[in-house]
């Protein structure tokens, strides 16, 4: 079973994403900001991370920078999942090492294909 860490400050988004991901057979953990997520990754690297952009304490971009520097931090596939829907943000995310990008709102089909493309389903 693959592990997915959902990093999002919205409880509703975490709940919806968890529901979709569990339906696809993932074991899911959650973090409400980048700092919490980083601590969880230090304890155990997930296979894939669903990452929001704007969060209190530590943003998604900041988290991604730290993650990729950590030992084993190149392993998780990172799928940005955000309301930042313009091309500049998308390019910045890819340049920073994101593997895929989901724009909110999204549905099961979208998430499933993105996870397929990063080799997780």
């Amino acid at each position: 079973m693959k592990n997915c860490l959902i990093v999002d400050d919205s409880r509703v988004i975490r709940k919806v994403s968890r529901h979709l991901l569990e339906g696809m057979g993932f074991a899911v953990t959650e973090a409400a900001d980048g700092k919490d997520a980083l601590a969880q990754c230090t304890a155990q690297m997930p296979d894939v991370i669903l990452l929001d952009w704007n969060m209190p304490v530590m943003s998604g971009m900041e988290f991604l920078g730290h993650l990729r520097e950590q030992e084993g931090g190149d392993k998780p596939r990172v799928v940005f999942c955000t309301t930042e829907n313009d091309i500049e943000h998308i390019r910045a995310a890819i340049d920073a090492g994101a593997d895929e990008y989901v724009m909110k709102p999204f549905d099961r089909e979208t998430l499933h294909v993105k996870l397929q493309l990063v080799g997780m389903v």
Partner: protein
Amino acid sequence: MGSATERDMTHEVLAQLLAERTGQDLSPSRRWRVETALSALLRESDATTIDELVAKLTSPFGCPLSSRVADALLNNETYFFRDQQVFDVLAKSALPKLIAQRQDKRRLSIWCVGCSTGQEPLSLSMLLAERAAMLDDWQINIVATDVSHRAIDVARRGVYTPFEAQRGLGIERMIRWFEEVDGRWKVSPRLLKPIRYQQHNALHAPPMGSPFDLVLCRNVLLYFDKPTRQQVFSQIAASLADDGMLLLGAGETPVGQTARFAPVKDLTGFYCLGTPDMPEARPRTAEVPARG
């Protein structure tokens, strides 16, 4: 809505309208969705109930309205590269086979039946554009048709919401083939170039451009009854090149429906006109429409 008889009448009018315009059944199981499907149209046409809307259909201005009502009742669900595995087979086996067959003519003609808002022909166009080096001096024509005026209008515009644009597409393809303009995603003119969109009913004679080397008719037949399906199969058979192929949606099959098509060996979901080594699938004369 009014009394039970009034409601039955209303549904009967709607069912008849849908059958006439599209060949589809408004089966009882789909009736509960009618109100949701028509809610936007109710607001736009100043009607408060469906009965009122249906009454307007009989007015002298009813004709454009009935086309919009039929459009609203259709299910236009689609997304890019729907059924990824099928598109993998298309990219890795079916297209190379067709390209090899057409080396001399250097021409490929494709028909997308029930193309909805364009995601399916655009997925095909992407696959072909990504093989541009191989198809450099080829003439590629994709005729994409749908009975829904609204769907064809959207497809022609080629501008999608972020929700639509990302459905089925990886980010790499999205930024390669779309341009973001004020929060909307505009498809590259290069992908639109080989596509000719046309409003067209699949029950009628095929559009210009036949014989087609490949016909896609995916997630369309499932809304029809058997005689209507047979009618569509006949139209497709008439439009297909002798060595062309038909691609159906997951769960759709000509088996038990028509003897005009037989499965293509090793290509799941693809069908060819009956061949002599498959006698049971050889085309028969005049197996046509039971429906008028």
